[in-house]
């Protein structure tokens, strides 16, 4: 049995355990009384906040139950926010605004978005909850990348100028995602389209210019997987160049680096799976030790969802991929409490009903599996989640409707307690977001979190409705069933080799498309209320001018010429380390100072081969 099969058993056992404890609380008076005491204690210590209207509200809302069995079912079955099994949230207070006055209780404010550990903040809570608002990061994190490094840099400054913290999220162009240099044959038209072009670590220096990369108010996310270890090495080299070697342990951020979902859905893989996983584990092993604040893999369902998977498939494949990484890293001898807290997740949020509870269920299964199968401590049990609203749900016809679609999806994402979130721009069916629409996308989140009172006064504001519970139960059962299917192949990797996930996703995509045109899935202004004769709307297109593309090619040529001799030696050294089987990541950090992305990819492919696409 692979670890995934054990996870299925662990969840089933845990569910049984909860039922038994519920019974025990009803029959064993002492135990029952303990649970009731705990419940009353939590309630009495819950601080009371005040809404701008003067309405007083507890900062944590709890179900109106007073019977020992039901209390036990709640506390063990779903847990308080920030407590095992984390159904209601990875952290205690998530998006709550800072307490203006300390009105009750003594526990303090905890990290708003998950980056600040719960425990640590809990200890000096009283201080942290003082009237002076604590500097915390906004959960808004908008994915950006266009043109060359300096263009994306300008967009980053535009997006974060008014924020307390700079949480950047970087999109790369096609050649970069495939580890190809901008001067390669046949890719000129792709330079700087759909993301920015990175060829060398000098581009990386330009990309984050003006930001303090070592600051605790700065974090960078990089959405790239195939060549992720090389790009990560460039990031480190760029930071060292600007801030010296001591900056490395302070670097904060995330790199996607998710090979499994690439092979299952997104297809941006450049080395054979086995070799890709080796390079990835090399990077994770090094960064979890040397850069303890970095997330070296973002286990992603977004692209699985966008490729057409149902929400259950998306969550099931993502969480099972997570367990597969955990199994691999544990097999390398890395302690689970070293790598566990550095695994993060990324899900899609669309309009299907499953999204009411998809992240809640994922968080619960992850926590149980990590604790009971991998023996993880509390920090490694937490499913830390970034959500993006669904790009696939956006439609070109009467595209301003996309604002409403995204708003509804944002609501679902925050109901699910996501730790950070990207809201799509309404113009995304046509173009890399223009400033006009990306501004509205960012404002959408601010309206929900800052302007409206929905999420800032009380935790659990929308948790646990009967409908949500019904969805939760159905989704959990369906996810476990998917796990069993994967387990029948012998686990995640063998299932991948049999194309299991790919074919399931493709079938779901085809069904989705059929449903749009047979009326099962009405799409407003496309298949329903589509009386307006559709003209292509006037949208400002964001494209990279030819001259810029040429500039990137020219800069790369200069870099290559300048480093020609050093590059040869560096690549030889890299080849030697790779062949030896040693961890090659430290060498990569040196190599990127004199080699371009394409040079490194090319040399590695000579050694380990090319990825053979799956259909």
């Amino acid at each position, binding site marked *: 049995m692979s670890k995934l099969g054990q996870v299925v058993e662990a969840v089933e056992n845990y569910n049984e355990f909860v039922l038994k404890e519920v019974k025990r609380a009803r029959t064993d008076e002492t135990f029952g009384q303990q649970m009731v005491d705990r419940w009353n204690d939590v309630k009495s210590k819950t601080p009371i906040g005040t809404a701008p209207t003067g309405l007083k509200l507890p900062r944590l809302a709890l179900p109106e139950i007073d019977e020992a069995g039901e209390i036990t079912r709640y506390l063990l079955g779903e847990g308080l926010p920030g407590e095992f099994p984390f159904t209601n949230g990875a952290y205690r207070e998530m998006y709550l605004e800072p307490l203006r006055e300390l009105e009750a209780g003594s526990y303090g404010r905890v990290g708003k978005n998950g980056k600040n550990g719960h425990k640590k903040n809990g200890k000096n809570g009283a201080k942290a909850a003082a009237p002076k608002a604590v500097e915390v990061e906004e959960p808004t994190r908008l994915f950006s990348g266009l043109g060359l490094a300096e263009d994306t840099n300008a967009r980053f400054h535009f997006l974060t100028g008014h924020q307390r913290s700079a949480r950047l999220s970087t999109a790369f*162009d*096609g*050649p970069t*995602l*495939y580890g*190809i240099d901008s001067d390669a*044959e*046949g*890719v*000129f*038209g*792709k*330079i700087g*389209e*759909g*993301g920015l072009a990175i060829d060398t670590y000098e581009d990386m220096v330009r990309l984050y210019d003006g930001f303090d990369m070592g600051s605790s108010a700065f974090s960078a996310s990089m959405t790239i997987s195939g060549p992720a270890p090389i790009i990560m090495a460039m990031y480190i080299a760029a930071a060292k160049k600007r801030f010296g070697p001591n900056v490395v342990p302070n670097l904060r951020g995330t790199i996607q680096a998710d090979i499994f979902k*690439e092979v299952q859905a*997104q*297809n*941006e893989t450049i080395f*054979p799976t086995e*070799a890709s996983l080796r390079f990835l584990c090399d990077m994770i092993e090094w960064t979890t030790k040397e850069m303890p604040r970095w997330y070296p893999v973002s286990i992603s369902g977004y692209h699985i969802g*966008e*490729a*057409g998977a149902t929400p259950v498939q998306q969550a099931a494949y993502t969480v099972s991929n997570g367990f597969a990484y955990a199994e691999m890293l544990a097999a390398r001898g890395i302690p689970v409490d070293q790598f566990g807290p550095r695994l993060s997740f990324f899900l899609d949020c669309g309009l299907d009903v499953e999204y009411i509870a998809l992240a809640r269920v994922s968080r619960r299964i992850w926590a149980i599996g990590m604790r009971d199968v991998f023996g993880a401590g509390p920090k490694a049990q937490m499913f830390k989640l970034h959500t993006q609203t669904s790009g696939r749900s956006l*439609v*070109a*016809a009467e*595209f301003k409707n996309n604002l409403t679609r995204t708003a509804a999806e944002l609501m679902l994402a925050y109901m699910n307690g996501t730790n950070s979130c990207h809201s799509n721009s309404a113009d995304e*069916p*046509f*173009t*890399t977001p223009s400033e006009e629409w990306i501004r509205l996308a960012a404002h959408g989140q601010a309206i929900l979190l800052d302007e409206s009172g929905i999420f800032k006064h009380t935790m659990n504001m929308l948790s646990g409705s009967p409908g949500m519970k019904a969805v939760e139960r159905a989704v959990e059962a369906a996810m476990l069933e998917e796990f069993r299917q994967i387990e029948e192949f012998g686990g995640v990797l063998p299932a991948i080799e*049999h194309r299991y996930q790919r074919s399931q*996703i*493709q079938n779901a*995509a*085809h069904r989705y*498309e*059929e449903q749009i*045109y047979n009326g099962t899935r009405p799409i407003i202004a*496309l298949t329903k209320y589509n009386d307006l004769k*559709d003209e*292509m709307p006037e*949208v400002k*297109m964001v*494209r990279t001018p030819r001259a810029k593309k040429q500039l990137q090619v020219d800069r790369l040529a200069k870099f290559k010429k300048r480093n020609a001799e050093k590059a040869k030696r560096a690549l030889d050294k890299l080849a030697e380390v790779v062949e030896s089987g040693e961890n090659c990541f430290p060498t990569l950090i040196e190599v990127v100072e004199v080699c371009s992305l394409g040079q490194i990819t090319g040399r590695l492919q000579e*050694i*380990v*081969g*090319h990825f*053979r*696409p*799956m*259909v």
Partner: protein
Amino acid sequence: MAAPIRVLTAVPICDGHDSAINTINLEFIRHGIEVVYLGYHRYATDMVRAAIQEDVKALGISSYNGGHVEFFSEVARLLKKQGADYIKVFGGGGGTITGNDDVIMRKNGIDKIFFAGTSLADMVDYVHKHYGGTHKPFRGRKPSADMQLARKLTEIEDRYAGKKGKRPTSNVQRSTSKGRQGSKKTGTRVFGFTGPGGAGKTTLIDELVLRLLHREPKARIAILSHDPSVVGAGALLGDRATMINSQNERVFMRSMATRGQAGGLSPATEDCLMLLAQSGFDYVIIETVGTGQEAMPFQTGLVHKTVLVMNPDYGSRLQLQKIVMLDLADIVVVNKSDQERARTATSEIGSRLDQNKRSQILVSTVANRHRDAGVDELCDLLTEDRRL
């Protein structure tokens, strides 16, 4: 009955968005169209070469991450440059392709862009309406060797369309003895690969091609690959998508649908193979559909060496007795020999081959492992008489 429409579909370089094209491929197949799928992250030059060799009516491109104006235009330019603009280019990319882009692209020779919101049915309709019918003869300057060969193969295939079981008269020399003599004179070696589905035939052939191209810098290779037709419908011919090393200037590849014939080959295969064997290639490789191996799929006169590719997971020893091909193949490959069961499989198959007393050779490979020594050995075995 007219021959099915053949189209080639692909996704441009640096683009892995294959959800749309997968769905469209599926829809095309259901409506009787044969789709040669080249895969994602593909160069314009590879698309053009493949479209010419497959002699498709149209080339469909699905592009989602920008640069489409340049890419589509480059494909049209390359087709025109080679005198192959009889192949129409169509495509789409959701909302990323604007009306303005469409104007430029059409001016550059693109036949049709499907905009966001086009239904699958409308696309199928368009293909049936505009890309049906027989090929028109080449016009203008002299067509290239690839173009001529590709067209002859189409003519053979078309002659068989709708004439199940009957042999149409053929321009190709049918005498097997002559065929064999002819190929000997030109030094063409023909290898036949067969084996159950999932054994890794396609990967193995592609790795073999990589080695042949590397060892013999001037060698030219032809590949005839087969995929099953869906009953009453088209076919997805997807081998090109995984055969990354075979998308090469020195390789001529043709994908064929079985069009209702059992046994892993098409009614037109024999004639097509004969033509390829006479066309001056150094190697011709033919691959069957994954079949039950109840009989020898190849006409023995045409194929110099037959290779049976097995998966260690064939089940019990009893299952092995049912595989007739084990008695007939010259070389038996146990692929995926890194799997747990491989050791047992190798010894079971080995003792079966020993009983045959036919000096058949057993090779163990892991085709999907880079630089696999087993594939090197297979390559040596297949080419030994050429190197002598």
